């Protein structure tokens, strides 16, 4: 794919060059532009600075700013501050997490769920991405990929209620099973880890599918063919060639899905059962139900965030080690 595209572009560049010179040529010989270009590219250092100033300012003010505000709130004893009340600096909000074991259960449950659901998403979407990238002609590929994107245009809530209609006691699945006489009493799918999984994989599949697809698409077919010529079986070829070559896609897909799953709120709340409370629900509780405990909620969010980050960092290390091991 990569090679095709660049070759096509080169050919195009040659064919177009006559008409091109008019626009690009005119632009590059236009005096103000020339002055600007010379000014900007006078030294590599200046060139770098011009490129870097805007992104650095942006991430500092727009990305870090809200988070720092959050951090600040998590270290105070009252927020929003009522008039006449003085705000104090405190670590109590963090200590209340470590001091009370009732918060640990949803915390670890969230991390475990996120891990399990990430793995499930990977297992489910890998063959799908593989099929798309390796077995579908390039002409149909985009169409079949877009087909999969359609359902994601429906909002999370509407989709989640549709899953309730699917899995409920009088839902579509139970109705079909009953119709064929496979069951007498409805199977209670809803409000279990299973229904929650069905809903969550629905949300995460897209984030996994795209990185997997793009890494599989880049894989040169010739390598597999060469291996086949050397007599390697399908499984061996997959394990020794395809899998290692797509580790990068797996790693970025899993990282994204894991981090996002730790923050899911609406779907677990709506589809989960009494024993599947996730940490996001605990955090939201501090903002919704007990509206005056923003600092505690903020502190818990920071803790969750750091934990998720630490796990993904460890995971990334593992993947890098794996990749290095393979290339040796």
């Amino acid at each position, binding site marked *: 794919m990569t090679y095709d595209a660049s070759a096509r572009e080169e050919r195009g560049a040659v064919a177009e060059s006559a008409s091109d010179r008019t626009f690009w040529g005119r632009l590059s010989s236009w005096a103000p532009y020339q002055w600007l270009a010379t000014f900007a590219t006078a030294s590599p250092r200046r060139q770098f600075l011009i490129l870097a100033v805007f992104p650095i300012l942006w991430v500092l003010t727009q990305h870090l700013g809200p988070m720092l505000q959050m951090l600040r709130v998590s270290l105070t004893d009252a927020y929003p501050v009522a008039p006449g009340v003085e705000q104090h600096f405190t670590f109590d909000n963090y200590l209340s997490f470590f001091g009370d074991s*009732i918060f640990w259960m949803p915390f670890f449950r969230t991390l475990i769920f996120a891990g399990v659901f990430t793995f499930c998403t990977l297992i489910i979407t890998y063959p799908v991405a593989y099929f798309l990238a390796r077995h579908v002609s390039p002409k149909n590929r985009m169409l079949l990929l877009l087909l999969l994107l359609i359902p994601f245009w429906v909002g999370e809530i509407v989709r989640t*209620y549709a899953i309730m209609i699917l899995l409920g*006691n009088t839902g579509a699945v139970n109705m079909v099973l009953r119709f064929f006489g496979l069951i007498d009493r409805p199977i*209670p799918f809803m409000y279990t880890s299973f229904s929650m999984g069905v809903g969550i994989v629905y949300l995460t599949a897209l984030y996994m599918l795209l990185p997997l697809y793009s890494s599989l698409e880049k894989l040169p077919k010739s390598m597999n063919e060469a291996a086949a010529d050397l007599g390697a079986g399908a499984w061996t070829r997959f394990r020794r060639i395809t899998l290692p070559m797509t580790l990068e896609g797996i790693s970025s897909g899993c990282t994204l899905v894991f981090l996002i799953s730790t923050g899911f709120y609406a779907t677990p709340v709506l589809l989960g059962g009494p024993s599947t409370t996730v940490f996001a629900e605990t955090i939201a*509780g501090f*903002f*919704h*139900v007990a*509206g*005056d405990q923003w600092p505690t909620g903020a502190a818990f969010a920071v803790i969750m965030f750091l934990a998720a980050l630490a796990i993904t960092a460890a995971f990334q290390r593992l993947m890098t080690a794996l990749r290095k091991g393979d290339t040796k």
Partner: protein
Amino acid sequence: MTKLILNRRKFLNTAAMTGAALASPAYLRRAHAQGGEVNIWTYNDFVPEAFKEQFESETGIKVNVRLVDDQGKQFNLLAAEAPNPSVDIMTVAGHRFLQFIDSDLLAPLDTDRLSNWGNINPTFSESDWSTINGEKWGAPILSGMEVLAYNTDYVSPEEAETWDTLFSEKYSGQTAYIIQDMMSIIMLKMGYDGNMVAYMDDPEKAAAIVEEAKNFLIEHKPLVRKYYDGGAEFQQMMVNQDILLGHSWNGPAAALINDGFPLGMAIPKEGSYGFVYTYNIAKNCPNPDNAYTFLNAILASPEIGAAMTKASGFISTYKDASNHLTDLEKKSTSFPDEQLANLQFFRAEANEMKYGLVDPAVEAIKAA
């Protein structure tokens, strides 16, 4: 849908009548001269569309409605906007007053400026919960209560007379409730004051009671299908027959009854709690005069109250509003007197202590 259109058309007629009744009073003409706008945060359909159009055309005041979906978000939003909010009127549940008042977010209501204040049933307008720090803080519009709702095809009315049915082995895995609300009800069921006002001077006793209620719910956790949060979830569980009975607010349950679903509701003999949605004026709001004009206009006629009831399923606080309901709507928004006798209102006085104890208990129940 045909049903709904019929209702809406009917309402348009009644609204026109309301308009005729509204047209003359002097306060409206004065407001017309002043024009401007009024900003309202409220639930979907709490400001009837026909009333809104009528009000805008007669007063020249533009009504901007911002739809909200729960109390906590309104509080968060208002807290984030304070001390100069964009909102004039919000919709707070009576027992949440104190949280807003303590954070200095509400302005006391000057009822002398509301000539239609008398149109509210005194049960609501003069009730004990409605006066805090010697002031009135909101105009009651709709009333809700915690009820036991049940599928009448499977559960008998006798079984629904007690909260115990909700925790019986017979309906194991077929029940649902909102934990926070259930904590108050369990305390009441155990013979305590679920509002905890009685234990304000005795925090140890209060803690012991919450502990007892918590242990009860943990013990019965294996029997429950779902701890839910919103009325729509409850309705869906009923429709899907994932549950056969559950604790619910009367509004969502009434909406199911009005749709023809075989649902019954009861205030069990151990008692239950009621709450009232009120319109409140935000402190330092941008358009206080228009806010009062709006409040007075919306309180003007029982038809408006009936329209709110039709849309929400909650009970109107207006005198004579039920005269404007259909028989089914009347049935779904009324209870026998002997059941109503078991009802008391949520109170806010002890909320800080109560929720300081109840919130961790709820977390513990979920984590158990």
